[in-house]
């Protein structure tokens, strides 16, 4: 009986109604980030595709490939991903371009990660894009929603948000799924640490110190910039490193526990964002999607700033 009531409560949480603009605002943020992220790396992706074929170790959806694709095919795939990304950002023919974009992004990033090293900073971006691509995330703030408005009204700022649709569960569950996937990913990272060779000792400070030191040494010997100055400053402060290690382990392992509560999950999102900025400061490791805050944006009411911006636009227009 208790399980049933817990499931019903989760169901109510999962299908809570939210405005279409909340989901759409996240689509715009993610699409903007992805366009910037991919656009800046086109040359690098092409260079990686020219690496020695013997270093090709396909992962994810690229696994069926026996050998690397010809470079022109890679270039064409990247171009198609960027084009679909633009359509997805604009919310143009979303029923087709949403799944197309998320599928192409999954393919492009799987292929990019198929050369001996998996960059774990790309995983969340792909998961979130998949959910957005297959959900009605272009029912507002999109060209699709604008087309549904009579021609004479299309110049108004109101036309951008397409008729202020009332809160609906159809816009709520994709955001809940995105947040659940985020929480699950952090939980996995936490479990890998405590199930690894160090066990709970991972949180004793010394192991984090060594992780930071090994990473810093590699950067000193092979990188352009070297280790972060904070890596040197914190090296002898095991007590502080213990706090940081325990804190990051708590952020990772407690992610699913926080998830059902709106308030706690917001606090968690702020904690996770802080953790990534800490990692950047100490290790110079850039989880760009997370550092931008966009990965954690679905925990917040994104429709509010959108409404504020629209009000401001109306005010300026007057």
């Amino acid at each position, binding site marked *: 009986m208790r399980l049933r009531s817990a499931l*019903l409560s989760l*169901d109510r949480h*999962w*299908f809570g109604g939210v405005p279409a603009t909340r989901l759409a605002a996240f689509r715009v943020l993610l699409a903007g980030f992805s366009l910037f992220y991919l656009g800046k790396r086109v040359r*690098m992706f092409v*260079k*990686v595709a*020219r*690496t*020695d*074929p*013997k*270093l090709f170790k396909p*992962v*994810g959806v690229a696994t069926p490939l026996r050998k690397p694709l010809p470079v022109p095919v890679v270039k064409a795939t990247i171009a198609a991903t960027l084009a679909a990304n633009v359509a997805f950002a604009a919310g143009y023919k979303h029923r087709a371009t949403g799944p197309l974009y998320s599928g192409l992004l*999954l393919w492009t*990033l*799987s292929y990019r990660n198929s*050369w*001996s*090293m*998996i*960059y*774990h900073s*790309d*995983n969340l971006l*792909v*998961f979130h894009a*998949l959910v957005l691509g297959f959900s009605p995330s272009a029912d507002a703030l999109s060209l699709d929603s604008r087309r549904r408005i009579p021609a004479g009204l299309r110049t108004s700022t109101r036309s951008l948000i397409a008729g202020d649709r009332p809160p609906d569960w*159809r816009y709520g569950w994709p955001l809940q*799924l995105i947040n*659940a*996937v985020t929480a*699950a*990913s952090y*939980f*996995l*990272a936490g*479990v*890998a*640490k405590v*199930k*690894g*060779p*160090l066990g709970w000792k*991972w949180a004793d400070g010394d*192991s984090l110190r*060594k*992780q930071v*030191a*090994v990473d810093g*040494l*590699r*950067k000193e*010997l*092979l*990188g*352009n910039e070297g280790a972060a100055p904070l890596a040197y400053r914190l*090296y*002898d402060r095991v007590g502080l490193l213990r706090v940081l290690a325990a804190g990051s382990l708590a952020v990772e392992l407690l992610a699913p526990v926080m998830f059902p509560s709106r308030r706690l999950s917001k606090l968690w999102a702020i904690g996770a964002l802080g953790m990534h900025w800490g990692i950047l400061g100490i290790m110079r490791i850039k989880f760009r999607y997370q550092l931008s805050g966009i990965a954690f944006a679905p925990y917040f009411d994104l429709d509010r700033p959108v409404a504020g911006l629209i009000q401001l636009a109306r005010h300026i227009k007057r």
Partner: protein
Amino acid sequence: MRPVAGKGVPGRARRASRGKRRGATLDPGRASARLLSFVMVTCVLAPLRHNWGKRPVDGFPLSYYPMFSAKREATAKVTYLVGLDGRGDRIKIPYSCAGSGGLNQVRRQIRRAVRRGHSEELCARVAREVRRRKGFKEVVTLQVVTGTYHLDDYFSGRNRQPLKEKLHASVPVEPGRARPGTGAAPTLPSGSAP
């Protein structure tokens, strides 16, 4: 007869609300959303099993996120590139001279090339790239080495020199052997992977 307070009408209301809830639960749209959500969260959590496996395999985007979970010792080994000038002084050679895709990707590729016995080939290729690049004019010799460093000594500043260093390959950076005008990315030698 007057309905008993708290029973008759509220009971009906409760039944109606339960019926409405059941209707929402059975809504086909919600049912597919529920199924999709369940499948996706299960897929994301599926790599958890690798933590109990003998030979865990990481994937993308379904990963068990093994980063930073390895046990580190007091010393660390790194395989890297070293340039030497005419006086024998060392010049740092960044990973980008050996390949594209980020420091850790190239570092792994270098290590793999050395393990597979392709150090000479790697060294020659990087030497050509170094010769082509601006800012490395003084480099006359290029080496591929594996250094063992004591982390405490290195980060406390007591001793930044390696405890030991193994030389895998050393080649002269000859001006005549440079490939002029090739804008192509330097790639690691063929046969450097399993």
